[in-house]
C-alpha cells in the first residue's frame, strides 16, 4: 500500500518536473524558432529567387549562388573579402589570443596586483563595440588624433600616418583595436583553465627541476586544451562574421580600395544596397549569407572535433 502510494507520488513528481521543464523551455524555444530558425529558413528560400529590389520575382534555383561564386565580375570582390576575413582570423589568433595566453600564464603566477590587472584587462571587453570603434577612429584621426600627436611628441613624426586611410595600414589598425577590445576575454578563459590544473602537477615538475618554459609547454598547455578549443572556435566565428569595427571605422565600402572589406560588409551592401555601391539585391545577399553560414558551420564543427580530440581528460 505504502509502496504503491510512494510510486504514485514519485510518478507525479516526475510528471510535475517534466511539466515544469517544458514550461521553462517553451519561451526560449519559441523565441529561437521565430527569431533564429525561421529567418534562417527564409534566407535559404530567398536565395533561390530572383529579386527586383525588394520585390520577389521567379524561382531561379541556384543561379544566385553560381553568380556570386563564378561570375568573374563579382567573385573577385567576394574572394577579396574572404581573404581579408582569413587575415583577420590568423592575426587575431596570433595577436589577441597570443597576448591573452602570455598574460594568463603571467597572472597564473599570482603577481602583485593580480586582482587589479585582472579587472583592468577585462574593462575593454565590457565597453560597447560602437563606443570603442568610434573612440579609436578619433584616436587614429590624422589631424587631431591622439596617436599621431603622441608620435609627434615622441619625435617620431615620420611614423605619424593616416592609419585608417592607407590600404596597407587600415586593416592592421582595426585588428589592433579589436584585439585591444577583446584580449581580456581569452585571458580570463585561459586563466580559469590554468587554475583548474591541480597545483601538485606543477609543483612536482618544479621539484624535478623542470624549467618554467617546459612546465608551460608540457603540463599547462595540454591541460588547458578545452579552453583553447572554445577560444579558437569563438575567434573563428567572430572573425568570419566580423562587421562592427570595420563598419564603424571605415564604413560599408571596405574603404580604402576594399582593403577592409569583409564578408559581413559585402553581404550588407549586396542585400540592402548602399549609396555608392548601388541598389539592393536580396537574392544574391541571401545566397551570400547562406554560403557564410554553411562555411562557418562546417569549419566550426571540424575544428571542434579536431581540437577536442587532442584534449586530455583530467582524472
Amino acid at each position, binding site marked *: 500500500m505504502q509502496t504503491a502510494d510512494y510510486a504514485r507520488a514519485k510518478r507525479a513528481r516526475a510528471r510535475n518536473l517534466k511539466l515544469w521543464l517544458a514550461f521553462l523551455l517553451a519561451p526560449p524555444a519559441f523565441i529561437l524558432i521565430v527569431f533564429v530558425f525561421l529567418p534562417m529558413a527564409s534566407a535559404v528560400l530567398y536565395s533561390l529567387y530572383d529579386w527586383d*529590389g525588394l520585390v520577389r520575382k521567379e524561382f531561379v534555383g541556384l543561379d544566385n549562388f553560381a553568380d556570386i561564386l563564378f561570375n568573374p565580375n563579382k567573385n573577385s570582390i567576394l574572394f577579396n573579402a574572404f581573404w581579408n576575413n582569413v587575415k583577420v582570423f590568423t592575426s587575431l589568433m596570433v595577436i589577441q589570443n597570443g597576448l591573452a595566453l602570455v598574460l594568463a600564464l603571467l597572472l597564473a603566477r599570482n603577481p602583485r596586483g593580480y586582482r587589479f590587472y585582472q579587472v583592468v584587462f577585462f574593462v575593454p571587453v565590457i565597453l560597447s563595440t560602437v563606443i570603442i570603434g568610434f573612440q579609436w577612429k578619433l584616436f587614429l*584621426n590624422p589631424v587631431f588624433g591622439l596617436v599621431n600627436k603622441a608620435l609627434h611628441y615622441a619625435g617620431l613624426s615620420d611614423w605619424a600616418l*593616416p592609419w585608417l586611410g592607407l590600404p596597407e595600414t587600415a586593416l592592421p589598425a582595426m585588428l589592433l583595436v579589436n584585439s585591444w577590445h577583446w584580449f581580456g576575454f581569452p585571458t580570463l578563459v585561459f586563466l580559469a583553465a590554468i587554475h583548474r590544473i591541480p597545483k601538485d602537477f606543477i609543483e612536482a615538475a618544479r621539484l624535478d627541476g623542470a624549467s618554467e618554459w617546459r612546465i608551460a609547454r608540457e603540463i599547462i598547455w595540454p591541460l588547458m586544451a578545452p579552453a583553447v578549443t572554445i577560444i579558437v572556435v569563438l575567434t573563428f566565428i567572430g572573425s568570419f562574421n566580423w562587421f562592427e569595427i570595420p563598419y564603424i571605422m571605415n564604413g560599408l565600402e571596405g*574603404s580604402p580600395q576594399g582593403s577592409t572589406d569583409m564578408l559581413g560588409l559585402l553581404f550588407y551592401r549586396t542585400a540592402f544596397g548602399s549609396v555608392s555601391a548601388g541598389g539592393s539585391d536580396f537574392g544574391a545577399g541571401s545566397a551570400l549569407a547562406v554560403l557564410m553560414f554553411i562555411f562557418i558551420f562546417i569549419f566550426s564543427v571540424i575544428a571542434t572535433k579536431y581540437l577536442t580530440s587532442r584534449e586530455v581528460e583530467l582524472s
Partner: protein
Amino acid sequence: MKHHLTRALAAALAFSIAAPVFAQTELSFWSWRQEDVAAYGEIIAAFEESHPDITVTYTAHEAKAYNTILTTALAGGSGPDIIHTRAYGSLENISGAGYLEPLDGQVDLSTIPDTLLRGTTLRSDGKVYSVPFATQTVLVYYNKDIFDANSITPPETWDEFMAAAQALKDAGITPLANGTADGWTIEVASGAIMPNFYGETFFEEVTSGATTFDDPRYVTALSRMAELAPYMPVGFEGVDYATMKALFTSGAAAMFIGGSWEIPSWRDAGLNVGFMPGPAAEAGGTRMVATWLDGGYAVNAASPNKEAALEFIRFTATPEFAQMLADKLNNVPAVQGATPTDDALAEIIELQENQTPYIMLVAFRFNKPTGSTLLQDGLQQLLTGSKSAEEVAAEVAAGIAAAE
C-alpha cells in the same frame, strides 16, 4: 404622414447641399523628409485653397527605412496616392516594376530642364515617372576672412587656383579641407574640378558610347585632381567627412569642395563663407557646376484617385510651387521660374546656367560595380600616388564596360 414627407424632403435637400462636400477626394502623400513636415503643411494648404475638393495628407517616414516601407506597400498593392521618390537608380527600382503612372502628356514638364528630367526618366521606355523637385550643386566654398587676411581674390582659372593654394600653404594655412577617407567626398570634389577639363560634350559622348572613360580629356581631368594632393590636409588619406567639416568651420582650412546642402551648416557655424564654381581650364573658359537631382513627386499607378493625384503633381511642376520650395524649404527647385529670396540660392541658380550632370550618379549607378565605386577607389589611389591618371582612367573604363 405630411410630417414624414417634409422630413424626407429636408433630408434630400440637406444631402444635395452636403454632397459636394462629401465628394472630397482625400489623397495620401508619403515622403522621407521628416524635417519638412511644417513646410509641406503650408505648401499643401496653398494647393487646397485652389483645389477645395481635394485634401492632401503628408506622412513622413523614417528616411533610412523609407525605401523598404514604400516598396513593401507598393508590392502589396497599396501605398499612398502621391509618392515622394528618389531619382536615378533608386527610382528605377519602383518605376521599372510598374508601380508608377507615366506622366508624359499628363503633366506639363516644359518648366524642367532636360538634364534634370533624365533623373526621373525610366531608361527602358523613355517615359518620365516623377516630377523633379530639387537639385544639389557641387561648389567650391572659401572662407572670406582667410582670403581677405592673405589678400587672395577668388581664383578664376586653374593656374590662379593653384597659385592661391600655394600662397595659403606658404602662410601656414591648409588650403583645402577635403580628404579621401570617405570615398564619396572625393567623388563630390571631382564634380567641381573635372568637368571644366573634360568639357561640355564629354557627358553626352560617354553616355552614348561615342567615347569611354580612358578618353584623353578624362585623363587630363583626373591628373588635375592629383595636383590637389599637396594642398590637402596632412594625412588627407585618413581625413573623413566629419574632419573635413571641422577643419573648415574651425578656420584651419581655407577652402572646402562640397555640395550645396552644406550652406545651412556654414551659417550655423557663423562662418563668413563665399562660394564659386570650380576653376576654368584657362582664362575665359566655361566654369561648369556639376548638379544632380535629389528626387521627385510621382503618382501611384494603383491609386483609386489618380486624377486628383495628377492634379497635385501638375501643381508641383509650376513656378508657384518652385517658389515655395525655395522660400520655405531652402531647396534649389528643379522647376525653373522661381526667384528665391535667399541670396545664396539665387546665386546657385545663376551658376546653374552652366550646369553639367554629376556624371557617375546620373548615368553610371545603375549597374554593378557602379561608376561611383570605381571612381572613388581610383581617386583615392590617384591622390595617394599609387596609380597614375592613365591607370585610373583605364580601370574606370574597364569596370564600366564589365558592369552588369
